[in-house]
């Protein structure tokens, strides 16, 4: 018995050692360029490689540290691009991929204390105003002008889509876009195309089943499929709701996704006076906002039980698990939901469209006075406190090369350059994701990023509780927004805005 124990112990220890010593799985290599282009461009990669090696030589062995949110595009840049960059330049990349909260909390403390822990940080479009208001970021365009020897021949700010405008101030550019996506309306194309379901819907509601273009249709579809799931003993509900009652994602869904479709923009805050309540010129507790919030709360009855525990990630997982017939889902998830058989049971059955809107919202969006949904994304920036600015400058250019964009877009459904839309790989994937990229290209201008609030995280933190309480059924929509607008004004006043 004693001998057997020793043998067993030896085997366990040996297997642990072997596991620990095993080489990590190599990340997916980027697809080779098309054969017909290969001949013409044969010389270019070699030239590029030598440029990176030459430019990186003075910093070889240096380690740059960065932080980003754990999203598919960030993970790709950490696992694939980071390794490619190290091979090309000799500069090591230590990349912390973390939760959304920490992605903001850690760098802002680093920059406030000027400790210089991070050499590059993910700047969510929402956060850029907070960073710029405190001069926390390095002007990348100015740094490039200062160091022409570090200017990559394959990097050009002009190649980016208009999303880069979010990171400009006073002629300077403070971030290199690394991801951008719209938050579209996803629906189950297979269910919507089923003749029996179509007939039943037509009979019940008197019009054809199609992706919702207004809120009444959305409600009808949600009600219909919830009943359909119950009648057929299916784990299927009418809609997703990003309604975690203790997470900021719920407030974001309300102010950035739902309310704009009711014509309430910029969170209902008057950006001239920094007021939120109707009596002071704001719109956060306007009738339109209350109607929008009530609509969203009403959707909870047609959403799966996990809705009040769902953040952005869980909403995508719910849709991928085939538990919802429609919903607002962040675009970064659209590609994997539609194509990844390991994580999704609805591949090939995902439809993509613009979200349903109230009357007048499309006109507002077309004129620039409003928007129909959220244009999400972020960039890599260099903190002013970085101790390796030059090495970080090479890194942000490396991820901003045209040549790395297509594979990155395929892995993370993000597009930041106009040319990526025309890449054969993306054109091919676009068909599998029901035209998500085409929608992003064509309807992109109708979507917009977060309101330009330098204090948006603090403000959101002060109104979260009202939204969560309403989602938990403790208060109604009107009471919640009346309380939220007062809290918002108090917060802004305390921060020195709106006096």
């Amino acid at each position: 018995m004693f001998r057997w124990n020793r043998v067993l112990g030896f085997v366990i220890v040996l297997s642990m050692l072997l596991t620990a010593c095993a080489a990590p799985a190599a990340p997916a290599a980027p697809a080779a360029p098309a054969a017909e282009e290969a001949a013409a461009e044969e010389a270019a990669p070699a030239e590029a490689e030598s440029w990176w090696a030459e430019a990186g030589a003075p910093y070889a062995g240096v380690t740059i540290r960065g932080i980003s949110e754990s999203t598919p595009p960030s993970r790709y840049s950490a696992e694939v691009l980071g390794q490619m960059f190290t091979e090309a330049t000799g500069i090591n990349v230590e990349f912390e991929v973390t939760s959304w909260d920490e992605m903001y909390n850690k760098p802002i403390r680093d920059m406030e204390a000027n400790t210089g822990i991070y050499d590059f940080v993910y700047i969510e479009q929402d956060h850029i105003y907070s960073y710029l208001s405190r001069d926390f970021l390095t002007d990348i365009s100015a740094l490039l002008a200062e160091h022409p020897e570090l200017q990559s021949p394959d990097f050009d700010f002009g190649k980016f889509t208009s999303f880069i405008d979010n990171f400009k101030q006073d002629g300077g550019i403070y971030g290199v876009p690394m991801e951008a996506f719209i938050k579209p309306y996803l629906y189950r194309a297979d269910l919507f195309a089923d003749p029996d379901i179509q007939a039943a819907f037509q009979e019940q509601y008197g019009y054809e089943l199609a992706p919702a273009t207004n809120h009444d249709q959305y409600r009808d579809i949600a009600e219909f499929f919830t009943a359909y799931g119950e009648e057929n003993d299916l784990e299927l509900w009418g809609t997703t709701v990003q309604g975690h009652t203790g997470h900021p994602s719920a407030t974001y869904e309300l102010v950035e996704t739902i309310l704009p479709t009711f014509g309430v923009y910029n969170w209902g805050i008057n950006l001239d006076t920094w007021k939120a309540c109707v009596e002071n010129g704001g719109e956060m507790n306007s009738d339109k906002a209350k109607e929008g919030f009530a609509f969203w709360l009403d959707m909870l009855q047609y959403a799966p039980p996990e809705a009040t525990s769902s953040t952005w990630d869980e909403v995508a997982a719910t849709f991928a698990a085939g538990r919802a017939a429609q919903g607002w889902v962040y675009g970064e998830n659209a590609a994997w939901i539609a194509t990844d058989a390991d994580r999704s049971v609805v591949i090939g059955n995902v439809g993509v469209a613009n979200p349903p809107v109230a009357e007048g919202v499309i006109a507002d969006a077309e004129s620039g006075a409003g928007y129909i949904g959220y244009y999400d994304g972020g960039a890599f920036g260099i903190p002013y406190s970085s101790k390796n600015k030059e090495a970080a400058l090479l890194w942000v250019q490396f991820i901003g090369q045209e040549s790395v964009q297509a594979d990155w877009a395929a892995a993370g459904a993000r597009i930041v350059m106009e040319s990526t839309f025309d890449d054969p790989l993306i054109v091919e994937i676009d068909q599998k994701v029901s035209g998500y990229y085409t929608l992003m290209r064509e309807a992109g201008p109708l979507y917009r990023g977060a309101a330009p609030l330098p204090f948006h995280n603090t403000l959101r933190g002060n109104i979260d509780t009202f939204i969560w309480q309403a989602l938990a059924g403790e208060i109604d929509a009107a009471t919640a927004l009346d309380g939220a607008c007062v809290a918002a004004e108090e917060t802004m006043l305390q921060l020195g805005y709106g006096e």
Partner: protein
Amino acid sequence: MRSNRMGWGLLAPTLIILGIMGLLPFFYVLVVGFFDWNVVSATGKPIWTGANNFRRLVFDPNFLGAMSRTLLFTVTVVVSELVLGFVLAQALVKEFPGKSFFRTIHALPLMVAPIAVGATWRLMTVPGFGIAPYYLDRWFGIDYNIGRYAEHAFATTILMDVWHWTPFVTLTMLAGLSALPKEPMEQALVDGANRWQVLRHLTLPMMMPVIITTTFIRLMDALRVVDEVYLLTGGGPGDSTRFIGIHIWRVVMTWTDYGYGSAVSLLVYYFTLVLCWLLFIALTQIGRQQE
């Protein structure tokens, strides 16, 4: 004189580390508590505000709510863990088949990091996917949803804490019980005392130092619970599980209100000290009365 100097010399590294790691941050927080300092304010700079942050506390419903919830949570979990832990220790002090196995299994939760405990309980209780809502609905028809019902979420945080920390109480009590002299108990039994009388008049008074120490440790831990609960509920639904630790985290990290966050931290620290002191007096009084 020489040995005195040598003593201080040997103590010096510890005192220096204690000063840097303990006292310096404490005084820093104390100073920041007197400033209005929010990193995203229009100025972004700390502004002297005197005792204003402390005055704000008194009228802040978020703080008062978080404090009262924390007290309710703390009292419930500490009492439950003490009673359960003592009973289990009494059982484990005796010999029975499988005792070692049970003791090992019982101690397993202690080895799990709080963040992992929160994540595991979340997986078990998340509505729609979790095993707990599934079987509660199937067997008892209970619509258990910690994302929607405040009382479900609060009760689950208590259950989770009791599951996680009762083994700690059991082990400390077991150590105490094993160390008790057997003679007084045997004498009492010979003199005709029943088991309840032995427990009340001998075991409990002799165990009082262990009980006091365990109570203090668990009390202080429960008052500053954050990670487990944050992972499980995020402090929701609404603010129903936003205990004071999570509230401080939100004030400092989310609201970036460093001055007010420091003031809240200091008051909670002071409150914990006073509570422990009062408890110490109460428990030692009870101990004396029993003697």
